[in-house]
Structures are given as structure tokens and as C-alpha cells.
């Protein structure tokens, strides 16, 4: 029997479902727990140039028998979770980058105790990369409504990139910088709670 996946069907499905485009994505919020923790909302995230939907991988485990290799599912890993990269336009005040650098200092500060536990005033802080630190990202449709939302859990800052300036030969180009975060895992509407909760 001939396949029904013909060009007319493709056209019908394309018209009915459309396609996601490379700008159908928004980062809604980045909230890093604790006093002085970084909070980026829409006023800041409107400067984000790039972002991506997170990936999930089941590690392949092989078992051999009678000369044949069988591929079995192993543990889950969240590919790229150690470095979720984003690129930001840098506003003239550089306030977003400065706040990211402050968060980087807060994440590792050996002496003032503000990373975890309590600060010098005894104010209890959220745990770095704990469950209350998260990032919410949306995949959008053509009318900019979220169709799928992901919550990256346990977000913690990693790399704040440099900005190179052209003092002598600059042409007024808008500068950008990269930043990366890590997270433990992500949740979305399609991943229900199971006994292993990932």
C-alpha cells in the first residue's frame, strides 16, 4: 500500500500546525534564591538575544549477546545543564552585566558567608543552586503565546563573558556578551512526577 505522506498531506499539516521559528522563544524570568540573589525579569530579559530549549538524554548502555549488541536505556542526563548559554545585548549602563558579576561573586565568596546559610546580619539565605533558584523559558506560537514552558531547576551562574571594545576603530556597533548558567534538571508540563521525579 502506498504511503499517504504525500506533498498534499504535508501542505495540509503545515497549514494546520505551522512551524516554530527561530524567534519563537522567550526567557520569562531568572530567579536565584537568597538575599541579594539575582532576579532578572522582563525589563532585563528583553535584552537577551539567544536562548535554547533544554535537552534531555538517556545514556545508552550496551549488552552483548551472541555477537549482537543490544542498546538499553541507562541513566538520564540533562545535556548542556552544566553550561546553559545566553547572549545579552549590553545596555549602556551595563547594569545587567554588573548584576551578573555580583551574582558570580555571591556564588563564590569564601569569607562573608553570604553564599549559603546566613549572612553577616544573620539573614537566612537561600541555598545556591537550590530548588528555589530557577529559570522559566517559553516556546511561543506565532501570536507569542507560550505553547510549552520549561522550568530549569537549581540554576546557578557560571560564566560571565567579556566585552571587547574597539576604541580606535569602532563603528558604533552594539556590543553583546555571553553568560552561562548551570542547572540540575528541568520540568515541563509533559514530564509528570514519577517515583524518580526527573
Amino acid at each position, binding site marked *: 500500500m502506498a504511503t499517504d505522506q504525500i506533498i498534499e498531506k504535508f501542505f495540509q499539516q503545515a497549514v494546520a500546525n505551522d512551524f516554530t521559528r527561530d524567534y519563537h522563544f522567550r526567557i520569562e524570568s531568572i530567579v536565584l534564591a537568597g538575599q541579594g540573589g539575582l532576579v532578572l525579569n522582563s525589563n532585563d530579559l528583553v535584552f537577551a538575544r539567544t536562548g535554547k530549549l533544554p535537552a534531555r538524554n538517556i545514556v545508552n548502555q550496551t549488552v552483548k549477546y551472541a555477537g*549482537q549488541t543490544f542498546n*538499553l536505556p541507562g541513566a538520564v542526563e540533562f545535556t548542556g545543564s552544566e553550561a546553559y548559554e545566553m547572549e545579552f545585548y549590553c545596555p549602556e549602563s551595563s547594569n545587567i552585566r554588573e548584576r551578573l558579576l555580583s551574582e558570580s561573586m555571591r556564588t563564590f565568596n569564601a569569607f562573608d558567608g553570604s553564599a549559603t546559610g546566613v549572612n553577616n546580619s544573620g539573614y537566612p539565605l537561600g541555598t545556591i543552586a537550590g530548588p528555589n533558584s530557577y529559570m522559566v523559558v517559553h516556546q511561543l506560537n506565532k501570536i507569542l503565546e507560550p505553547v510549552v514552558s520549561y522550568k530549569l531547576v537549581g540554576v546557578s551562574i557560571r560564566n560571565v563573558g567579556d566585552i571587547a571594545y574597539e576604541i580606535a576603530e569602532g563603528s558604533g556597533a552594539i556590543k553583546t556578551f555571553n553568560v552561562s548558567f548551570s542547572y540540575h534538571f528541568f520540568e515541563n508540563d509533559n514530564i509528570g512526577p514519577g*517515583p524518580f521525579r526527573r
Partner: protein
Amino acid sequence: MATALPNYSPANRFLDLISKWEYDVPLTTQWFVTITPKNPTYFLSKLNDKNNSGLFKDNGVILGGSQLNLLLNSSVQKNIEDPDASGLFFVQNIKLPKEAFTISTAAVESMGGYLKGAVAGDRLSLSERSINIGFLETNLDFNDGVIRPWIITAGYEGLVSVKGSSIKADIRVAQYTKARGSDKKPRRKLFEFFDCVPYSMGESSLDYEGEKINVNSVDWVFNNYSYAIV
């Protein structure tokens, strides 16, 4: 269309079997450990006697969030049968003791071409087998806060205990795997070690090479053990 493999193919048979839960390869990361002192009050008093500086104390009161509290408070550590149980979170690895008995040779001298027989000897003694558990070092360090004073106390008290006055603990190791029918978190093995005491902890070193995760290894002796499959 691809031709299906013939029925007598060993690969097909293997695939049929491995598709059944009983023969599927288990998840090896789904396990946890509980350590439950047999007589918590006596245990705590003995540790206090020998090790005033070894416990997490604040004006004489054991800090509620300490790992010692996890050990002593059953509602925190939870019974292994509890569906919410997750054991001691800072246990990073565990080596279960082997089981063996000795074999010796039964023969007369000069047997020529005849095979010398094998005779069963004794089962491995308790001193020749131990449990090894790796504990993640956290800010309130379980190793130096609980294990070190425990070893020191056991050194004074010895391994003979009276019922109701014991510094020993029971260690349970539960292993889980993927769903089996309606059971979403089936337990596939349970090892229970009775009357356990830590007797050796490894040395630790400090350097300036960079931040790292420390897992400190502890050996435990036990009196007896049991195990259950499924």
C-alpha cells in the same frame, strides 16, 4: 519491507527475555542506605562521654539540622518501607561485603596424575569482611562529627554489647529499579547488616589546588546480615 528474524535466532530470544522485567538490566543508581542506632539515647550519651568536642553542639544542645539528628531521628531518616524514604542523602557509595569460604587441598603426598581433592574450610570470618561506605563531606561534616567520635567510643567500649546498651547500629541497603506493572518503584534487593560499628576511616588531606567534592570512606564491622531478593 525488512524480513523478520527467524524464531530460532538467539538475538530474538535474548530480546524477548530482556523485555521482561525479571530479566531486564536494572538501574544501578537507584539505591539508598539507612543507618539506625540500636539504642539512640545510650549511643548519644556514650559519644558525649568520650568526645565533648566531636559533636555538633551549640551551648550543649545538638544542632537540629545536623547529620547526627538525621541518624537519631527516625522521622527524618524514615523507615525504608516508607514510600518517601530516601535514606542518608550524603552516602555517595557503598561496597557490600563478599561471601566466601576457604578451600583447602585434601591429598596425600605424591599423587602423580591423580587430581588432589578440594575440601571446604571455614566461611569468611567477620574480621575478614566489612562494609565500606563513602560519605559526602558537607559543611556539618558527618565523618568528623559522627564517625570519628563513634570510632573513638567503640575503641573504648569494644564490640561486646548488652541489649539495651549498645553503640551499634543497623545498616539497611535498599536497591530499586524501574516500574513493574503498577509498582512504580519496585525494590529489587534489600541487604540488612546488624550490629554495625565503624572501625576505620581514611585519612583526609587539604590543599590549594582548587575546590573539589570530597567523599570520605569508612569501614564498618557487623555481627550478621540478611538479604532479600525482590
